[in-house]
């Protein structure tokens, strides 16, 4: 639903100007001012590494990541646009921790899963990501769950099946705990 509400943004891609301003006009309506999303199922982009951001824009443009709105937006983007928007995203300050406190039991269950699944092996001990790997710290919990479900079902594939393999054997309940943990564990990584 939220995705459809935001569909109007795509037409603004062709404007000129600096990419920070173009981010404000093209991306912020859905992804939030300063890239901190308040829209359900729409990711916070603040603090994402530029390599991750450009890789996702590339996959949307290439039709290899499935999201009608983002594919429509990315199809209108040039190579320079991909570079400019991804650098503008990376320049945004890292997002604040979530406002609501974690549920201790879910957090601990999710922490055990995160350890078992080796999340930090790629996403970093502080879950801040790096290069082609996304920041999880400060990400919206509902988007994290949506992404985990997509990887688990292999409906979302990046360059390869790494995330699908990492999540093999997890249950829907476990993915909810994991998303809850990641959303809040990231709070510790966000410096005041």
């Amino acid at each position, binding site marked *: 639903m939220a995705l459809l509400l935001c569909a109007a943004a795509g037409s603004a891609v062709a404007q000129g100007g600096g990419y920070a301003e173009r981010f404000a006009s093209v991306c912020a309506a859905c992804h939030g001012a300063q890239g901190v999303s308040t829209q359900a199922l729409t990711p916070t982009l603040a603090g994402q590494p530029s390599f991750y951001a450009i890789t996702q824009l590339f996959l949307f443009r290439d039709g290899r990541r499935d999201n009608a709105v983002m594919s429509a937006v990315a199809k209108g983007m040039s190579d320079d646009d991909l570079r400019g928007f991804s650098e503008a995203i990376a320049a945004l300050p890292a997002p604040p921790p979530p406002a609501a406190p974690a549920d201790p039991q879910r957090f601990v269950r999710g922490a055990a899963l995160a350890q*078992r699944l080796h999340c930090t092996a790629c996403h970093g001990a502080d879950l801040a990501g790096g290069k082609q790997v996304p920041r999880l710290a400060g990400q919206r919990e509902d988007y994290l769950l949506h992404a985990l479900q997509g990887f688990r079902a292999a409906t979302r594939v990046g360059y390869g099946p790494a995330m699908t393999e990492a999540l093999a054997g997890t249950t829907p309940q476990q993915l909810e705990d994991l998303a809850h943990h990641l959303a809040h564990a990231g709070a510790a990584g966000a410096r005041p």
Partner: protein
Amino acid sequence: MKTTFPLRRPGSVLARMALSALLLGALGAHAQQAAEEPFWAKGRPKGAATANMAPVPAFPIPTEADKLPVAKLKLPPGFKAEVWASGILDARGLRQGDKGTVFVSSLFVAGKIYAVTDKGGKREVKTIAEKLFLPNGIEFHKGSLYVATPKDITRYDNIEASLDSPPKPVMVYDKLPGEVPHGWKFIKLGPDGKLYVPIGAPCNICDPSADFAKIVKMNLDGSGVETVAVGVRNTVGFDFDPKDGSLWFTNNGRDWLSEDLPNDSLNHVTQPGKQHFGFPYCHQGDFADPEFGWGKNCNDYAKPALLTGPHAGTLGMRFYTGKMFPSQYQGAIFIARHGPWNRSQKYAADIVVAWPDGKGGIAKMEPFLTGLVENNEYLGRPVDVLVMKDGSLLVSDDHNGAIYRISYAK
């Protein structure tokens, strides 16, 4: 593993979490059982220096022709580097067809096979296959392009006559294991008319079954598979000696042992089907693996002909058989080194040249094309080399999506 807690709310969360941590033991056994790490991360030492080391994919946008680092390339006197083709996302393997078409393979970033043709001094790039699974291995023979993925080998017949409407591929061999780790291929036709195909170890370091860590050869219809060499961790480059037809191959050494050990290597198959090149027991001919090497003697395995540097990413290689370069390069081997991802100090990302000593080994190795490492970052990363019919040398660079041409003039 470091665990951090939200320090801002110690009263509300931290105390409760400490309590909840006691409940961890009550979780089901399945939650305690360790899942697999990503294959490349296995064996990675703990600590900050290695925490951010991971393979980095090619940048998803090719570098524009006028921004390529061609002015940075350093070559011996008399040699010249120029941009031969650009805008080829993830450009990796290089082969030339009978009519001059240069075929270019790619890996997971592009998943494509390209054909580059020369139109009056300008290069035209066409995508002839796409949405392929790690299609790194290509070979051209008698009008057909062979494409190897980790799963299978297919053939595009009469390809140079049909670049605009490529034929449906014919299945040649569909029994490759399909594993992703070290599953992508480099393939080449041998002087015996057989197709040589490596099957890498499905891991950084492990004692794999006999289905892995070897080079095999097969008839062009996929029949008659024979083992050529075993104990080969991961070769992504080989060629046949123009003097005697013997196989030489590059090999990528294991990861994470240390910054400086073990080396990648160049190896010479002098007894096809009979030699074991050491993996996983012995690395670089003289270093027993700390885990798998106990009870093994490195002298029981074939020694490398040349060490090519720790974690160097030693990939494509070709004997020089052209007429353009000075005579000293005749029969020398040009070798592409991609540059390490799992080493603090970046180096290589170059082309080296090695001279066989005429006795089965290598006399010396020298840098040939350098200049792509600056401030501990790569400006480009060579993958494969190709001796063109005119004697010039093409070099692919997957991180810039480009191909350079090296020529010589007195």
